[in-house]
């Protein structure tokens, strides 16, 4: 009973407000005190769906998010694998301090500097530049999820595996399978964080992504278009998370939380 009560409360507080977004996306005139709009219009939806920019922005956003997550995962995987059971405590602290730093630094600070470096390297205005600057932003989440998972696995299994003659490669493969939930969590976070970047694709890459399209409408006060893009954005982020969950973790709900 309690769990359903909490479920209802959570749904009401955290999900129901999005209903206002749905209403606003189709709202025409909507003056105080009407609870529902005085007139409805599908214009905003139509504008978004019919524009070429929307499709290419969607492709760019998803592509960048996936690429960023893949790069971050590979880098973090080797780092986490090395760090998890390493005796070099000092080294571990240094690596963690550097890797978690993006959480503590206001994001535009490193952007000012990295933009210069990227221009010097010839990486600005390219998708690679965007990826290179976005990867550090998602690394803390991926690394944290992986370490969290690895720390719960006893170091002894590796000794067992080694004694049984498993190669490093085989050890990693086993670990990958054991860590699926953590990997799904880390990659899900990485996908969402990179999906939501606005300044990086715009200034570093001059690449039009969904947030780049959305931002001027929201700041400019176009209620309907802002709401449509917000819904598209939210659904996109949910879809990315769920696909990470389904593809990486696999559909075995409930067996292990």
């Amino acid at each position, binding site marked *: 009973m309690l769990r359903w009560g909490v479920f209802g409360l959570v749904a009401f507080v*955290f999900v129901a407000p999005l209903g206002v977004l749905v209403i606003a996306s189709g709202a025409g005139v909507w003056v105080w005190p009407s609870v529902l709009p005085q007139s409805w219009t599908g214009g905003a939806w139509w504008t978004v769906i019919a524009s070429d920019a929307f499709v290419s922005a969607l492709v760019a956003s998803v592509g960048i998010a996936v690429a960023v997550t893949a790069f971050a995962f590979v880098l973090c995987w080797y780092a986490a694998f*090395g760090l998890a059971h390493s005796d070099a405590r000092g080294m571990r602290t*240094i690596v963690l301090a550097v890797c978690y730093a993006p959480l503590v630094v206001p994001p535009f600070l*490193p952007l000012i500097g990295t933009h210069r470096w990227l221009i010097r390297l010839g990486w600005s205005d390219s998708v690679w530049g965007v990826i290179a600057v976005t990867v550090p932003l998602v690394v803390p989440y991926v690394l944290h999820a992986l370490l*969290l998972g690895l720390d719960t696995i006893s170091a002894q299994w590796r000794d067992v595996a080694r004694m049984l003659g498993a190669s490093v490669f085989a050890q990693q493969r086993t670990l990958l399978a054991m860590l699926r939930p953590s990997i799904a969590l880390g990659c899900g976070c990485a996908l969402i964080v990179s999906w939501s970047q606005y300044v990086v694709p715009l200034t570093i890459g001059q690449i039009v992504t969904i947030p780049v399209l959305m931002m001027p409408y*929201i700041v400019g006060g176009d209620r309907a278009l802002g709401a449509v893009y917000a819904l598209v954005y939210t659904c996109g982020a949910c879809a990315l998370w769920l696909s990470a969950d389904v593809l990486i973790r696999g559909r075995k709900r409930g067996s292990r939380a």
Partner: protein
Amino acid sequence: MKWQGSSPLLLLMGAYVCGGIGMAVLESVGAAPLIGTPRWTLDAYVHVLTAEWLVDGMWLTMRIALVSTGIAVGCAVMICMCIGHFALTRTLLLIPLAVPHLVAALLTVWIAGQSGWGARMAHALGIVDHWSDVPILTNDTFGWGIIFAYVWKEVPFIVLFWLPIVVRIREEWVRVARVHGASAWRAWWGVVWPLSWPSLAIGSGIVCVFVIGAIEVPYVLGVTHPASLSVLSFELYRGTLVERPQAIVVALCQMLMCLVVLAIVLFCIWRRGQRHAGW
């Protein structure tokens, strides 16, 4: 494989953090101006650090960060205590997590604003006559609007961050405790809480630090003055070329605040480690 496996990552992150911040610091002292010849100067630091608005902004930022993190942690703990394994609620919480902060801020205006949807409902139910009778919940001087928006966004984050650990501890320990006759309440506070609070502390530290650094919510829901540090630094950044170094100085102040928060969290966890070692 030892820690060397982390060297590519370390290289990238080191380049990003040191290269990026280093260059920004150089710009703030006039050594790498956007245009013109380099000239070392601490003008930007003097201008910002002596300004009254900086102090006001710091107070506001601190207040918002602490209050919203506190409320969010409280709500998240209650939700975690209640839902346990219930996967449906957990999945539901993913939805607000996916909403961008800017949209969350906008939604707060649309719902909690004086002529917002909540006020319209109240009017339809006959509770208020005119929108001017509705209490001011957004763009208010204390920052309640900002706090609402952050709590709404961060509760799901903390729950999803912390819940897996709580669930694992429950699976492993609570059954034992219950067998030994502990009540559910005692099992929670006696077993689950002591084992899991460090990760809750880390989660709330992340949230607090994020709130100090993020701009969208205070930009939409704040008041013109005092403005949060993030809004101040953004406005300076978009201002004249003289103001750009000042924006960097304000951002460095934010970073400092974040480091303090982080240090406190880590200190608490470290102290617990010490105590445990003594047992």
